[in-house]
């Protein structure tokens, strides 16, 4: 925001309250009410307003207090945000960033535990990125704001408390690049957002059992970084996808299709995909745990895949 006066933030409680997860803390006092805007609870219209402002050249960052609430703005995101660049014959670009916390939290209930990346992935014209560490969160936020394309940045409710030493200076992460978390030889595990941590936990167990998993955080959900993924598939010949989306129509489903279409000859076994159960997320803690992929399941899947 310091670097570019066109950047503004809009969302519920982003200003004086500092943000429901304190992401925008301190910004309102520093930049004022016209640049950090507290909106009423009207997602459809303030997302629309953000898109309208982006059409004129401003660079708004629109926050959904929970990504699930952006379902109310689906029309604006799909038709206006995604498609205006095309339907206007290239006259308008929409340099908007839509971000917010999503994913399954700790007993937040079904409606507040939604994974919107699977619903948005078909919208033509948008870019989707999921951050997973403080380092890539900062990098992606900056890259997304500077990008001329509309970018949806998926954060995760449970990852806000992560602490990491990151560089003070300005840096950006490439919005379309996956991250090699742990190079390996036996199996490629593709994951993103919070599941990265479950995978890394499973990886410890797997290493103890003698396996050498290659873990890739795909980060770019649309478009997929098929270059990094492809190189990994060519090396290990076995793929396991671990995601927090539902199985039906999720990111994993699209990823399986993309890998099969492009790298079928390099696979020694069918691709396995571990996803959340196709149910509304229960409130009870034990039940909620069962709907989401746990490290033990990941270990079992790798063992099965590597037989």
């Amino acid at each position, binding site marked *: 925001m310091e670097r570019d006066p066109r950047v503004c933030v809009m969302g519920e409680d982003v200003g004086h309250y500092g943000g429901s997860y304190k992401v925008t803390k301190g910004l309102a006092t520093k930049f004022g009410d016209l640049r950090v805007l507290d909106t*009423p609870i009207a997602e459809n*219209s303030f997302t*629309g307003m953000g898109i309208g402002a982006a059409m004129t050249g401003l660079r708004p960052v629109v926050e959904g207090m929970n990504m699930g609430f952006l379902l109310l703005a689906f029309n604006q995101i799909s038709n206006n945000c995604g498609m205006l660049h095309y339907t206007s014959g290239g006259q308008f670009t929409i340099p908007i960033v839509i971000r917010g916390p999503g994913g399954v939290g700790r007993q937040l209930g079904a409606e507040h535990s939604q994974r919107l990346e699977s619903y948005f992935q078909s919208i033509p014209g948008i870019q989707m990125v999921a951050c997973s560490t403080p380092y890539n969160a900062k990098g992606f936020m900056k890259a997304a704001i500077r990008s001329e394309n509309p970018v949806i940045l998926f954060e995760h409710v449970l990852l806000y408390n992560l602490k990491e030493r990151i560089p003070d200076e300005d840096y950006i992460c490439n919005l379309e690049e996956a991250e090699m978390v742990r190079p390996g030889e036996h199996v490629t595990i593709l994951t993103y957002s919070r599941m990265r941590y479950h995978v890394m936990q499973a990886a410890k167990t797997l290493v103890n059992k003698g396996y050498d998993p290659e873990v890739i955080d795909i980060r770019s959900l649309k478009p997929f970084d098929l270059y990094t993924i492809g190189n990994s598939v060519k090396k290990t010949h076995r793929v396991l996808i671990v995601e927090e989306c539902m199985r039906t129509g999720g990111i994993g489903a699209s990823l399986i299709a993309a890998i099969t279409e492009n790298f079928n000859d390099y696979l020694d076994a069918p691709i396995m995909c571990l996803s959340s159960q196709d149910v509304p997320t229960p409130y009870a803690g034990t039940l909620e745990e069962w709907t989401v992929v746990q490290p033990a399941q990941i270990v079992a899947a790798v063992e099965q895949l590597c037989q």
Partner: protein
Amino acid sequence: MALSHLAASASRSSSLLKPLSSALSLRRPISGDNSPLTVETSVPFTSHQCEAPSRSVETNPKELLTFFRDMALMRRMEIAADSLYKAKLIRGFCHLYDGQEAVAVGMEAAITKKDCIITAYRDHCTFVSRGGTLLEVFAELMGRQAGCSKGKGGSMHFYKKDSNFYGGHGIVGAQVPLGCGLAFAQKYSKDETVTFALYGDGAANQGQLFEALNISALWDLPAILVCENNHYGMGTAEWRAAKSPAYYKRGDYVPGLKVRISWFVETMVLLSCNLLVLELCETVDVVVLL
């Protein structure tokens, strides 16, 4: 008569390519009369939370004839588009503006190209009044590259960025929050310009409209919401869709104006009320009913 001249002339394609105003002024020396003329509108305005503008409007014959020519051109354009649609040369949807031309022309008379206009899918004439050419209109309607959106948008997606015409939107009501976003950007950049966000009586029942109105009033945005009431929302008559047809009052705390249109003289009406509206816009935004 002016139009048959245009149609029959040998340089037809070049005159189609020229913007409306220059093509017309070359043809008619009579319309050069700048002497002032005062017109009184036939029906008074009704206002809500503000003072109605006066019924007398100052104009001159040249201006009046320009308005007439513009509206007649738009009418002919829309009827031609209708024939093309029936001949299946225009596919998909084709929403025509014949009968409503006075709104576009009258609005344009009071503002500059720096002010923004955004409308729904009935956008052919608004596009022309913002400076679009007939060639761009028909090429877009028929899906050709010479169209304003390179044939990729179609009837419902006309845009003209250089004259601040933001379209051209298919989903009913979705353009209103966009329009308030344009007004926000104008306030942010301290442009001293305004945005006209047009919608129909059908869209007047959309929730996002009230959401956008609330935010605009809260943040003091220079937005003017214009309801073009043609008494039908898609196929349903107004009285069957809206409990209260007094759309100009729906803004509640926002000033509103009801303007009756009957094609020609009432364009004057729009001219005068728009000037009032622009004055009011300094502090607050306005809802206008037509």
